[in-house]
């Protein structure tokens, strides 16, 4: 009786294994092809839709909103292509930060330090009124563009 059960179990498991391998074959092919297709699609999207830097003379506005919500507006003329470079050229705007995993990370602006680990505060970047999707180092600037560095705290306290 014991032997029959074992044999049956073995046979059952073997047929299951065969079934799995067959299903695995087709499923694997589809999964690999899908992954490859998505990689290609993502690369095309990233290349096509990432904002491109503009060369030449540009007039930009940079607004600094400090920890008391006070705005200081800087008008600036620049040949720089990315925001970090342009901000560094502005007199009266002192920027400090560190090279992080995702590029340049702003820690201090005009002596005001934001530290997320202390009070969930950080320096946010706004581009034409919208929350920026790029770091300051990789944010391309455009003529008549409006940029803002805003001291923010996460709503959670």
């Amino acid at each position, binding site marked *: 009786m014991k032997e029959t059960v074992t044999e049956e179990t073995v046979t059952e498991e073997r047929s299951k294994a065969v079934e799995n391998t067959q299903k695995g074959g087709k499923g694997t092919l589809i999964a690999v092809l899908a*992954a490859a297709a998505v990689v290609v699609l993502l690369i095309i999207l990233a290349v096509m839709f990432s904002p491109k830097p503009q060369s030449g003379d540009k007039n930009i506005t940079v607004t600094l909103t400090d920890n008391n919500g006070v705005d200081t507006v800087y008008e600036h003329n620049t040949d720089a292509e990315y925001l970090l470079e342009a901000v560094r050229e502005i007199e009266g705007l002192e920027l400090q930060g560190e090279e992080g995993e*995702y590029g340049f990370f702003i820690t201090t602006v005009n002596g005001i330090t934001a530290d997320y680990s202390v009070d969930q505060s950080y320096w946010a970047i706004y581009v034409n009124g919208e929350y920026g999707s790029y770091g300051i180092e990789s944010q391309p600037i455009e003529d008549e563009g409006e940029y803002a560095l805003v001291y923010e705290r996460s709503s959670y306290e």
Partner: protein
Amino acid sequence: MKDHPMNKADAKKYTTRDLAELGMMVAALEAGKLALSSLPNVEIVTFLIIMFAAIYGLKSMIAVVVFISVECLLWPVNLWTIMYLYIWPLLAALSYLFRKQSSVWFWSAFSALYGFCFGGLCAIVYIFTSGIQTAVAWWIAGIPFDLIHGFSNCVIMMVLYRPIRKVFKYYNSK
């Protein structure tokens, strides 16, 4: 209280062993997340959830829910908390759906795909908070990170799938 239908059903469904396994799953998810948190776009949570769902079945969904709850307790509740609410259960559900698959290539491709789509799935929240334009811009900006995420998921699965599956299967069949 003893005759309550819920109690009966629960008693049948979950044993002490199940509870211990759930605890281990949540601990592994938390520890795994914390251990690799310093490496950007490299994480082992995807791998663990796939393995739990594919081998332990629907039980893993409870582990995922507890994991998300622990995350909510540990970290400030933020936008990504909302993302977690659907991203990890969706991963567990999909992995459960494909549980019959046993090819390392299938799971490597699957986990890569999930990494590639991660930003896109997260961006859904931004559609509701900041509008479709911001969501798309945010997604596009993050594509390089999604690519790293997908490739690292793939490598982790390729290296760990066979040994971990063997161990999980061994203990699950006992």
